[in-house]
């Protein structure tokens, strides 16, 4: 015990010897680059005004599953903001860097914002795509990334599956058949959401991109309204990208106070306003009401309602030998 105390004291002394300003690392998924640039800037100013301390939040972005693996392998993330709860569960389970019940530590199951899956189509919607069943019409080419590598693609896949399941006479068999047909209309399986956006927008491939709502709005904003249209299907999935404190890493780095403040900040009206402006659906009721006309109304189902949670969905659909592998298996 004494030895541990001595080591701690020496460790603190050593840390102090090389300490400068507080530095946090937020490891996030692909499409959140712009969102966190805005949030980080606002938080740093707020934190400085409240505590007098300088805080710098570094960002790392990539496919959600890949980012989770990087943290498991030792990437020193203070905070993870990933596309799926399953990816953060993997960090908790495999690296033991945060408690198993991490999702209960922050409001709304640790998801300060939500999103959904919509369709980005060519200007004028030449193929007349309005709902999920339009995606498998002859001649329609669909762009979506690979669910094996992309968190966003898993949301796309489950949104399609959930829609089919909820059709009259819908069952797992009909849903599987629908999703199988859907992926027969996908000419390119990109590794991530940004890659798929590039395929559709920059390379001009496909008639419709299955996209995060925020990614679709961002593409339209960047390309101009004369290039693409957003089609919101009547039914889609409620995507809940979670955030979490990587407790063990943050404690070791001595950044717990700042990291916790950062995560709590995401739920403040100020941050929720930034979230809405970046095309993510805010959790805060007042901010959500303010932007109610901006975000279209649609029927949303959750992963828990139709798939029994992420762990079960992952195992059933996306693990090796799962339904997705069966669907895309080349015909003999």
């Amino acid at each position, binding site marked *: 015990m004494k030895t541990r105390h001595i*080591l701690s004291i*020496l460790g603190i002394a*050593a840390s102090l*010897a090389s300490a400068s300003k507080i530095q946090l690392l937020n490891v996030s998924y692909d499409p959140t680059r712009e969102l966190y640039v805005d949030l980080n800037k606002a938080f740093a100013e707020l934190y400085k005004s409240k505590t007098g301390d300088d805080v710098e939040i570094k960002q790392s972005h990539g496919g959600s599953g890949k980012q989770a693996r990087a943290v498991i*392998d030792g990437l020193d993330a203070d905070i993870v903001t990933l596309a799926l709860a399953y990816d953060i569960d993997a960090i908790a389970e495999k690296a033991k860097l945060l408690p198993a019940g991490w999702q209960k530590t922050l409001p709304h199951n640790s998801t300060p914002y939500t999103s959904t899956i919509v369709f980005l189509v060519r200007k004028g919607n030449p193929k007349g795509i309005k709902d999920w069943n339009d995606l498998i019409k002859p001649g329609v080419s669909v762009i979506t990334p690979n669910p094996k590598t992309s968190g966003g693609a898993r949301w796309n896949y489950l949104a399609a599956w959930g829609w089919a399941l909820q059709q009259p006479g819908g069952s797992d068999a009909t849903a599987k058949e629908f999703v199988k047909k859907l992926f027969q209309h996908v000419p390119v399986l990109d590794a991530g959401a940004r*890659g798929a956006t590039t*395929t559709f927008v920059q*390379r*001009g491939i496909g008639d419709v991109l299955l996209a995060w709502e925020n990614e679709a709005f961002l593409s339209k904003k960047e390309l101009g309204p004369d290039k693409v249209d957003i089609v919101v299907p009547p039914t889609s999935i409620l995507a809940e990208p979670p955030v979490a404190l990587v407790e063990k890493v943050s404690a070791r780095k001595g950044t717990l106070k700042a990291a916790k403040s950062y995560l709590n900040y995401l739920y403040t009206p100020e941050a929720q306003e930034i979230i809405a402006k970046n095309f993510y659906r805010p959790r805060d009721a007042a901010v959500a009401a303010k932007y109610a006309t901006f975000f279209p109304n649609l029927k949303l189902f959750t992963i828990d309602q139709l798939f029994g949670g992420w762990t079960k969905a992952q195992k059933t659909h996306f693990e090796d030998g799962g339904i997705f592998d069966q669907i895309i298996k080349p015909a003999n």
Partner: protein
Amino acid sequence: MSASLSLVFGLLLAAGPDSAAVPNPVPSPEVASLRAWLEASKTQTEALDQKIKVLERLHENDLEDAAAAAKAAVRLQANASGLWIRSADTAYAIRFRGIVRSGAAWDLVDENDKTLDQFQNTTVRFGFDGILGKALEFKINSDWSKGSVALQDAYLDIKYAPGLKARIGKFQVPLEWERFVSPSDLLFYDRALPAQIGPNRDVGAQLFGAFASDRVQYAVGVFNGGADASNLNNDANDDKDLYGRIWTLPLKGVSEYVDGLGIGFAANAGFHANSTPSGYKVTSGNSFFSWKAADTVDGIGYRFAPQAQWTFGPFLAYGEWIQSVQEIKRGITVVATDSIGKSSTNKGVVYRYNKTTLGVFNQDLSVSAWQAALSWVITGEDANVAGVSPRHPFNPTTGDVGAFEISARVSGLSVDDKAFTNANFADSTVSARSVLTYGAALNWHLIKGSRLQIGFERTDFNDGALVDPSAAIKVVRDRKSENQLFVVASTSF
């Protein structure tokens, strides 16, 4: 391509009956057929265009995948610091290293007829070290120069912070300065006489680290405790030795003249018992001092070692002094006079009486050694105790010759007079009381880590021989000097 084709088809379609000067709402069958053909061709072309774009995108993705795979691939890298195998993120790495140091040493006079003129592999080492994630490092190193394998290093480093690391295993004790110089970087045939004092390597655990931009480095540790120049793998008793060393660059950043000034101090202490004390050798490898057979180490021993080093451009200077004080037990109760002409007084000596073994003397006896050296890289490269990096590495085809460095050093070692006069711990007819070694060397650095060297060192002895070994009255004289010419080739990776 798609845009230009669309334009062509657009023009063709626009040039149909609708644009004719005389309206004709019912196109002729030929025109209708042509329009249908054009529409079908347009659709087909657009489909082909999509297919080409898909193929291009798939190829693009393949290239990205290949680039990502290359990034994620294990990297093999060979350079002057060794042969590395690294994980893509460099968090894991293993490095294979080796040293071969081979040379010849001749005593030009050899009046003592003790020096064996021979070619010799003085150092043959092979080992590997590595990085295991962000907090762990390790090293395993072996020596083959004696024709069999001897473990040199085997330890694990745990890095908590730059200023706090832990090392556990077998490694160099934090004491004598020149022990930290790799054999491949020695300026002379062997380390100077201070390296005779203190263990070479020992098994133990230490905390170490650096503060203030490496201006202050420290190491504190507990080890099994070994005899001078020993290289042990286990302990002979329950007692342990404590070590501490601090090394500072006190004027770093003040001026280029003093940036390279390092000053350090090291010390160790421990209780030692029931082991044979070590003798001492000169740099030729010849033994010049040994304790009498019945002598044993018995009691507190301590060593301390101030040390300093200075580098400025092509110049290097270093010096150190080390003293060992150890309680030695003399097994026979004899207060003998020494050889004729030498002191036999007991004045000023405090005897300690062993309560359990009557008639046995214990005596605190000291051995001290020192060295001072100067070196100049005459080709102008920066001097460094870790070796010179030639500005123009040796290459016969381009005429580049590498770097040349000339060095001089003087070194001494003295054994406590009390070892000879009180209780006769040592015999001055065969053991010298002190030695003085001085010489010069030329080092030719072919490339970083590889060099040839030639040098000369003379060693003078105080006592250590008899005027006439066959005479009835033993008269001690100084052992004849050694005059060692050496040539060494060494390489390391």
